[in-house]
């Protein structure tokens, strides 16, 4: 392979030289106000509670919140997971019970039963936000009582403010907020922000080490106390595209936030690693030497599925904000033809490198009117629809082929070694369609 020039930079250079298109950077997204068929931010607790192994996420909400969590989690795998819901009832609302006192009681019972918990996270919900329950204040008071044994944080995962992965964004923001400021002379460090599967973290950590970047931290860390002090010494590399609020706070702390394509596929991973390498002055030949094997493996793994995906027309419903990056991967590395990229929220600055690599013909949609989007999708009649679990079977029953979008949030897909898995996720429903001799 040739010496690496990040493709989004090549695209930008070509653009400034008047040599080519700007991808779909300038495409104006469709914005319709209608029914949103998406999860709320609480749902991100499903992976957050597995990631931070000594944290408990306590949702302060309604029976609906509790029901959402068990329905979205799919099965009740764990005897007692490290999340739960303090269900607000009539007595709380009518003022017969003092809600802060009630919450204290719930927390005391919880901590008594789970002495292993080091970080308690109070998570706001739609009802708690509407009644303006001040969880920040509650967390502050609890902290005064329980720190340092248990640290208490709060954030909102409510559906009136957050969609799905934005819950993680708010949690990480709260984590950063609770982290001390680094001393002015603190050594430079790389902070990789956004939940990654442990296996992927380990892979990236090995690559950074080989590149000679030795002060690397991941946010969130696997244990509550492991987040380092953050300040102007910090270079932030976003591993996930949904960190609008977290990066704002990091920038206020003086951190430098790198903008790069997200680490999906060979091209995305290389450009993403390159952004970090450049920030830490890693020599280009060293970068190429270290990444070459991974790049080759990733390209080879993806090529196994390319035939199945090449020329396939794909439609993305909004879900996790990963959609533009996923579409870029499918388009560039698997040869798919992207019809529409729906995303719950489009952070144009963070997404710019990925958007620049998408064809200008790509339709973007931010937010949702699900009925109108379904109309568009039917009219487009794509080969593959990436959508939520509520829409999958109804589309399949119409004879269409679908992929659950939530799998991209739950499955390890980032990095070189997972590029083939990512392609396979898209290829599987198409392959299955070819395989099955049953019609509906």
């Amino acid at each position, binding site marked *: 392979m040739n010496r690496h020039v990040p493709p989004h930079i090549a695209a930008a250079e070509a653009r400034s030289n008047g040599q080519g298109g700007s991808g779909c950077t300038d495409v104006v997204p469709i914005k319709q106000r*209608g029914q949103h068929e998406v999860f709320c931010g609480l749902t991100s607790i499903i992976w957050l509670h597995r990631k931070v192994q000594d944290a408990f996420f306590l949702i302060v909400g309604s*029976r609906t919140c509790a029901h959402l969590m068990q329905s979205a989690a799919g099965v009740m795998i764990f*005897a007692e997971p490290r999340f*739960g819901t303090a269900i*607000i009832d009539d007595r709380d609302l009518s003022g017969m019970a003092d809600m802060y006192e009630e919450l204290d009681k719930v927390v005391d019972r919880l901590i008594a039963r789970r002495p292993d918990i080091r970080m308690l996270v109070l998570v706001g919900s*739609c009802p708690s936000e*509407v009644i303006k329950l001040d969880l920040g204040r509650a967390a502050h008071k609890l902290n005064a009582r329980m720190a340092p044994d248990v640290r208490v944080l709060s954030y909102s995962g409510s*559906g009136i403010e957050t969609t799905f992965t934005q819950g993680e964004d708010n949690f990480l923001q709260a984590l950063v907020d609770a982290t001390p400021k680094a001393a002015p002379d603190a050594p430079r460090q790389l902070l990789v922000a956004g939940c990654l599967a442990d296996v992927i973290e380990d892979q990236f950590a090995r690559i950074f080490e080989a590149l000679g970047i030795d002060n690397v931290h991941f946010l969130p860390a696997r244990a509550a106390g492991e987040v380092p002090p953050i300040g102007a010494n910090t270079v932030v590399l976003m591993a996930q595209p949904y960190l609008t609020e977290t990066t704002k706070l990091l920038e206020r702390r003086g951190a430098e936030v790198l903008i790069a394509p997200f680490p999906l596929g060979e091209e995305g991973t290389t450009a993403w690693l390159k952004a970090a390498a450049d920030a830490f002055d890693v020599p280009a030949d060293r970068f190429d030497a270290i990444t070459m094997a991974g790049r080759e493996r990733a390209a080879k793994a993806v090529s196994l599925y390319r035939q199945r995906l090449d020329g396939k027309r794909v439609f993305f419903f909004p879900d996790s904000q990963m959609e533009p990056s996923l579409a870029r991967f499918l388009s560039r590395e698997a040869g798919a033809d992207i019809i529409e990229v729906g995303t719950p929220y489009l952070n144009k600055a963070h997404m710019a490198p990925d958007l620049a690599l998408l064809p200008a013909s790509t339709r973007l949609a931010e937010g949702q009117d699900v009925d109108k989007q379904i109309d568009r999708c039917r009219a487009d009649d794509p080969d593959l629809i990436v959508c939520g*679990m509520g829409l999958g079977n109804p589309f399949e029953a119409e004879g269409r082929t679908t992929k659950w979008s939530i799998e991209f949030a739950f499955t390890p897909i980032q990095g070189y070694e997972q590029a083939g898995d990512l392609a396979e996720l898209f290829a599987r429903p198409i392959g299955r369609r070819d395989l099955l001799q049953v019609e*509906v």
Partner: protein
Amino acid sequence: MQLTVWTYEGPPHVGAMRVATGMKGLHYVLHAPQGDTYADLLFTMIERRKQRPPVTYTTFQARDLGADTAEIFKTACKEAVDRFDPQAIIVGASCTAELIQDDPGGLAKTLDLNVPVIPLELPSYQKKENWGAAETFFQLVRGLAGGRTPEPKAEGAPKSCNILGPTALGFRHRDDVTEITRLLGALGVAVNVVAPMGATPHDLTRLPNADFNVVLYPEIAGTAAQWLKRTYRQPVVDTVPMGVNATREFVREVAALTGADPEPVIAEADERFSWYSRSIDSNYLTGKRVFIFGDATHAIAAARVAQHELGFKVCGLGTYSREFARDVRAAAKDYDVEALITDDHLEVEDAIVAAQPELVLGTQMERHIAKRLRIGCAVISAPVHVQDFPARYSPFMGFEGANVMFDSFVHPLVMGLEEHLLGMFREDFEFNDGAQASHLAALHAGANHETIHTPEARTAPDDKTQDVVANEGMAASFGSLSWTSDAEQELRKIPFFVRGKARRNTELFATEKGVNPITIETLYDAKAHFGR
């Protein structure tokens, strides 16, 4: 404020969705934030429904709160009627919208929609899913069937009834309806309307034409049936036909209303349950300890089948349906157990551990508990799981339902001869506690001790289902007692799946008699005292 991890029932608006999704031609406009749309996947995933539930959510956001959420509701309502062209709509609020008090019913009335609008008041902070379903169905029936005059019957027309209660996402509702419709047909009864499942709003207007109502699921249709009885004097058949005897009683009750002869229908039933239960190989079922938990109707029926039709011993009975606590308490009295009325699954787990059953009949929640405790389990009630919608015909009601129950309740148990063989070979080097048991395929082979999940294990730092090795199956419940090593050795010769019970009984006996330490003599004295 109550701490909850897993819930048996969703919020009441999910009950309303189960009614709406079961019906045809009805649309539900729900004032709710975007996250509440998760409920769609219950229907499209768990039940594998081919259509989206007929629900429009307003999905208002925080920034709308200061502006006009009422206007958002009105727009959603108008657009839903235009797009889906329903015969009627129900309107209401989920928990969050209830707090902003927009009054969806009042707003919808201002829109001059050309379809009937039935407003729902479902208090989310007091009530739960089944109550929500019952209230929704009742409001629909009252709103659409109220003020009608029953059509006069044609001369010689057969007697007819409505079948009330089945909904979307119900436990085996699909097949129960088929089975009971068939049974009623055998009695010469025509089914006028099945509702909510499969009915249109227009069909509900025809409810008063039936001669009587059959209530299959009192949790859902009880309120509506009582209203129909008061309003149109339609008698209610409320014997739930679950189990052989209850089905026979149901047939006789229906026949008494129609003047038909029930006995030929009973005699000709394709029912194998009774013979299978009487057959010699079922002897080993006698006295098997069974713990039962579910919605009230299924729990009560399963207990009757277990104890009186299979010869099990009901060692625990409970429900999460607080509205029906009295019925379950009354039933529990018959089995000499105290009813467990709770919606806390941890309490249910503790009760199961304490009762030491050999079989658990419960919901998906108890299935998980039983799996951790390595006890056989059959699911008998909602909340449901994708496995509770089997591809094959699999009712729980009627005579075929009894056949299905025989298989479901008996197959998880160690078979009779197998049990004797376990006794014969318990010292065999290839066939011992550590070896994989054929009926517990899910277990890892090679474990040296039977393990059990104890409540203490929940505090383990990670949630991987923690198996704590507890000596001889159940930690000694009587701390001060000790066992001689001979007695420990002898206890180990008892098959592992009853060893916990043997230990508990022996210790109970020793405590009562003031014996300490426990010897081989004590062990066998206790065995003689308690019987098997």
